[in-house]
């Protein structure tokens, strides 16, 4: 090529196109070369400090090995450090909460904020599947954001519910009551839910057939009011408000509950209303510690603004 060079003596590379277009041997600017070698140095330094070369032979199990870098950095280590740091921040709140009752946590604005924020995850993991992400309930599963607490809405009652679970019982009345009686009672329930008072005959039937034993003398599910504002219940529905325990509510729905009961073994069509116990027994995986239950109690209590 050099012998055909039309521009001999010029500092060209001997590559030329279209007669006279040729590549010259001009060096790049010095700053560019400095940057270039600095990048190379950076890369060498990086490969010494950090894991870099993959696909090396050498692991006993036949897997490929890689260079680890003298800093010993790994992404999982970095992640774990991050988690530790978060735990460190949370620890001081968690310790405080551990030494306090749920009532005390509720009264402390700062801790309450912390509890509400951090329990949102717990609620999502353990409660939201049935009760909805915001406690809005699901068909057959109670709303937690309202003020209708069949087992009591105080902190201690909520703790009880989470710890031991709840399982309400109601007899199936298909074989106990006559059809007109079921019809009368279902109508009575609907009337009450719409704010009515109920006729004397209906109340008579309600008392005679034993409804009163669980649903209370006033039909509001309260068996007795204890000193200190607590109520005594067996979890029977409040028949005097507009909230239906089993959806969709109304005459047919009420009749179905009366006929087939709640949680009756061997009764087809019975209402299913079981909340499992969430307390940790021993080291059982997947259950809640007392601390978690305490925090969830506060969270659930605040969903509807407390009682």
């Amino acid at each position, binding site marked *: 090529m050099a012998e055909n060079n039309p521009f001999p003596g010029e500092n060209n590379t001997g590559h030329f196109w*279209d*007669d*006279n*277009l040729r590549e010259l041997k001009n060096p790049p*600017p*010095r*700053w560019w070369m400095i940057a270039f070698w600095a990048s190379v140095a950076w890369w060498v330094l990086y490969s010494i400090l950090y894991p870099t070369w993959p696909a090396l032979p050498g692991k006993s199990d036949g897997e490929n090995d890689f260079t680890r870098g003298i800093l010993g950095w790994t992404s999982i280590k970095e992640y774990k450090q991050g988690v530790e740091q978060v735990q460190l921040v949370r620890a001081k709140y968690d310790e405080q909460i551990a030494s306090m009752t749920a009532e005390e946590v509720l009264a402390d*604005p700062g801790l309450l*904020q912390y509890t509400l924020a951090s329990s949102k995850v717990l609620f999502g993991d353990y409660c939201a599947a049935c009760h*909805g*992400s*915001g*406690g*809005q*309930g699901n068909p057959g599963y109670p*709303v937690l*954001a*309202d*003020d*209708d607490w069949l087992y009591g809405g105080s902190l201690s009652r909520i703790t009880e519910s989470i710890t031991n679970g709840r399982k309400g019982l109601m007899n199936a009345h298909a074989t106990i009551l006559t059809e007109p009686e079921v019809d009368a009672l279902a109508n009575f329930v609907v009337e009450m839910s719409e*704010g009515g008072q109920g006729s004397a005959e209906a109340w008579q039937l309600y008392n005679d057939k034993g409804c009163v034993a669980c649903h209370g003398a006033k039909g509001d599910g309260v068996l007795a009011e204890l000193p200190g504002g607590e109520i005594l219940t067996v979890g029977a529905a*409040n028949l*005097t*408000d*507009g*909230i239906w325990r089993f959806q969709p509510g109304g005459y047919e729905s009420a009749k179905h509950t009366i006929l087939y009961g709640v949680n009756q073994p061997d009764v087809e069509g019975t209402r299913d209303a079981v909340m499992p116990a969430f307390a940790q027994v021993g080291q059982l995986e997947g259950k809640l510690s007392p601390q978690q239950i305490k925090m969830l109690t506060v969270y659930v209590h*605040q969903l*509807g*603004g407390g009682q």
Partner: protein
Amino acid sequence: MSETVSAAERGGQAGSMDEIYAEAEQWHVNTGNETIHAKRIPGRWRRIKWIAASVWVIFFLGPYLRWDGGQAVLFDIPNRQYHLFGVTVLPQDFWMLSLLLLFFAILLAVATALAGRVYCGYFCFQTVWTDIFTLIEEKLEGHPAQRRRLDAAPLSAAKLRTKAIKHLSWIAIGFATGFSFVAWFYGAGKLWQDFFVGNANAAVYASVALFTVGTYVLAGWLREQTCFWLCPYARIQGVMLDRTTVVPTYDEGRGEPRGRMKKDETEDNRVTGDCVDCNQCVAVCPTGVDIRKGQQEGCIMCGLCIDACDAVMDKVGRPRGLIRYASLDEMEGRHAPAMLARPRVWVYSAILVIALAGIFYGLSSLAPIDLKVLHERAPLFVQLSDGSIQNKYTVKLLNKANDDLKVRISVRADVPITVVGADKPIQAKHGDVTPGIVFVKIHRKDLVGDSVPLTFVASATLPNGTEIEAPRESAFFGPRQ
């Protein structure tokens, strides 16, 4: 190349390419192979340059200005608040920053459209710091010829000493630059306490180190190369000039043909133009360009060549202004419209005024508290046992005042409502967002339609007794009717 082109044409094209290559030999592009040692001379534009550059004194002294017992201007990034003369600006107010950036961007455009790269020539830190660096160089090493001699001289103890003092001074200025910069963000007093005993954080040391090295390299070594090859503004501003822009220009009609003064020449018999070809305009140029070749990218429009040329014209008894601030239109004898008759000026000014008005409105209407209301979505509403409907709201109170405040939340609506959770005031920490939860209940019979508009109002009493209020619109949702 197509087959139909004849060999002669090919030869002709090759010839024109050779001409272009020959021309390329003549091109002088400053790629930093030689250091520009510009001559310093006094003059009008030199004086203006110093006055403009003195703006940067604020950069060094500003952090020591006090206001209400704190630093007057402090950009407190870790705590996410800016303090500007007693006004606290939080991230929520950052729309003002965009207006501020708009203002300065347009200011740059206006200045460039009217008078060329005034920013480059008079204000830019690269220009100003390089000017100071070369001033130090001149004081230590002498005038440009002496400096070139020193550079070429073999290494000696004296040369080493001079050079060492120069570089140390440069590094010292670089350090002062970095230190002052960080003081705006870290607090000047705290910085002096922490920095020298190793108590400041890594970001502080890294910033100061970066600025020290950056200043030293950019103003000490790269100098005009920064303007030539690094700076995007130099390129942007280059395209913002037009024919009416007033820039330092060599009056070719008056100056050419240039020629040196001859002994026996008088004003009557001279055949040359006014330019005496003394090259003083090139000698004083900080970027080493020859203004007589016309407007070019290397020119930062600092006007120093005007000073040089005027001084020479005075000396040889010819009128000043051979190099002067003039537009291309003026030089070519066209009609140059008055500044106020150019639509560009009006459009630019209007944007400037809008941006400024926005900033002033923002700063003057910064409410000490700001209320946000988030409506709970799951569930949107809840039916209560007494037949009323309840909605849940998370209120977020931003307290921009300098003290913690007890903030009361109230809710206004056209229908009877019950508010739960707002009976106790919220203790809002200053410079922070405090959340709270409020429930609103409306009885089913009072609900008209699916939703009812609500107005949440946060009110508080400042320590000086002033009552403040921050309203926020929201809505109440009920079941579809």
